[in-house]
């Protein structure tokens, strides 16, 4: 019997090592897998490359990871926010490397990794600073920039319901990067509000098929960090 459910967040992240690349779901705090990140912080490993849309908000999640000094590099689209002070400080101190990627390129590059493409010609960023030094090509009269896939050793994502085969559904806009990160990482770890018995999710409404998920850990919302 295959059972991908883990007993705890700590057990789920126990093999994430120093220097790993880690995709983290979430757009702002919606979909941010706070408890998995807390477990990662508790593990004490550092030198991480983080892929997330933002560079942390407030004091939880990616912000807490940055505050703890565990992040060597972040790949994101929107680091500068009113509550991104932990990133700001580390960045200004030269302690964290930033690869700024337009949000659509970020999504497309993650999706390309999951789908096994070698590279994609994307319309976004042509003629801008963010395409400097990159190969460009005119195709059917339109200009494109060549971008490469972003893959990762791990993905930490927050879903809504999961089962022991790793099938997942999401809740509202907490879905965001979860489905595509699950496809792009070698090992995807999902925290879910509820693990249901096999068959508890209608096969028509599975958003992430279990093949893309290696571990599932139940973090009941009652225990979850308030995500305001």
């Amino acid at each position, binding site marked *: 019997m295959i059972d991908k459910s883990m007993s705890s967040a700590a057990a789920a992240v126990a093999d994430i090592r120093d220097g790993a690349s880690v995709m983290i779901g979430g757009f702002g705090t919606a979909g941010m897998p706070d408890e998995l990140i807390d477990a990662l912080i508790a593990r004490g490993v550092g030198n991480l490359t983080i892929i997330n849309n933002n560079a942390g908000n407030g004091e939880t999640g990616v912000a807490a990871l940055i505050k703890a000094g565990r992040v060597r590099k972040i790949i994101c689209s929107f680091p*500068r926010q009113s509550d991104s002070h932990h990133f700001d400080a580390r960045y200004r101190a030269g302690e964290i490397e930033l690869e700024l990627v337009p*949000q659509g390129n970020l999504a*497309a590059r993650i999706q390309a990794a999951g789908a096994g493409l070698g590279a994609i010609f*994307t319309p976004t960023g042509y003629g801008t600073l963010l395409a400097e030094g990159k190969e460009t090509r005119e195709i059917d009269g339109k200009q494109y920039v060549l971008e490469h896939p972003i893959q990762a050793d791990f993905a930490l994502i927050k879903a809504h319901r999961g089962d022991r085969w790793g099938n997942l559904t999401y809740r509202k806009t907490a879905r965001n990067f979860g489905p595509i990160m699950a496809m792009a990482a070698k090992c995807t770890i999902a925290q879910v509000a509820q693990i249901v018995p096999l068959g508890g999710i209608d096969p028509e409404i599975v958003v992430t098929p279990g093949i893309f998920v290696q571990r599932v850990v139940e973090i009941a919302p009652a225990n979850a960090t308030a995500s305001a």
Partner: protein
Amino acid sequence: MQRLNREQMAARVAKDIPEGAYVNLGIGLPTMVANYLPTDKDIFLQSENGLLGMGPAPAKGEEDWELINAGKQAVTLLTGGCFFHHADSFAMMRGGHLDICVLGAFQVSVNGDLANWHTGEPGAIPAVGGAMDLAIGAKQTFVMMELLTKQGQSKLVESCTYPLTGLACVSRVYTDLAVFEVGAAGASVVEMVDGLSLDELQGLAGVPLRAAEGARN
């Protein structure tokens, strides 16, 4: 002359959004456009974090922080709306499915180049979000901004000095003084606030302006 205030600017943009349009309103000023869309027409607001059919803010105390917009504000979902992941969301823009996006700007050039993501100042931390995707992806990109900076410099320019967001992507510019069309043919004036002449506007804007066909004052 009477400059439009931000609410009036938002109402003016809203007037140009037809029923059935799929629209993304950028964070900041453009978000206000939603308040002026007719409630008796189906206009579909998209938010790049994965929802279509975005409704107004929830009542105080009824926020669901897993139902937010691109500005991370709590929103609601209209009946008939739906959720999707980020790759599908950006496919909506980049694949040309979105009819209109409305963005703020630091500068727009007369040929439609947009600069709105980065001041280029040393020490500034850049952040781009979905601006570049929206700018070049939507069928029409509208800009909404005050015509002049606080220092009185025109933000409608011959050529942007700020780092670009996208090339030749803006079609209309809605300002507190006038509405412009921009593009390969340069800038033309669609309408001006009462009491402003084309000559005066030209003086303020500092770029060559034509009156658009059917322009009104």
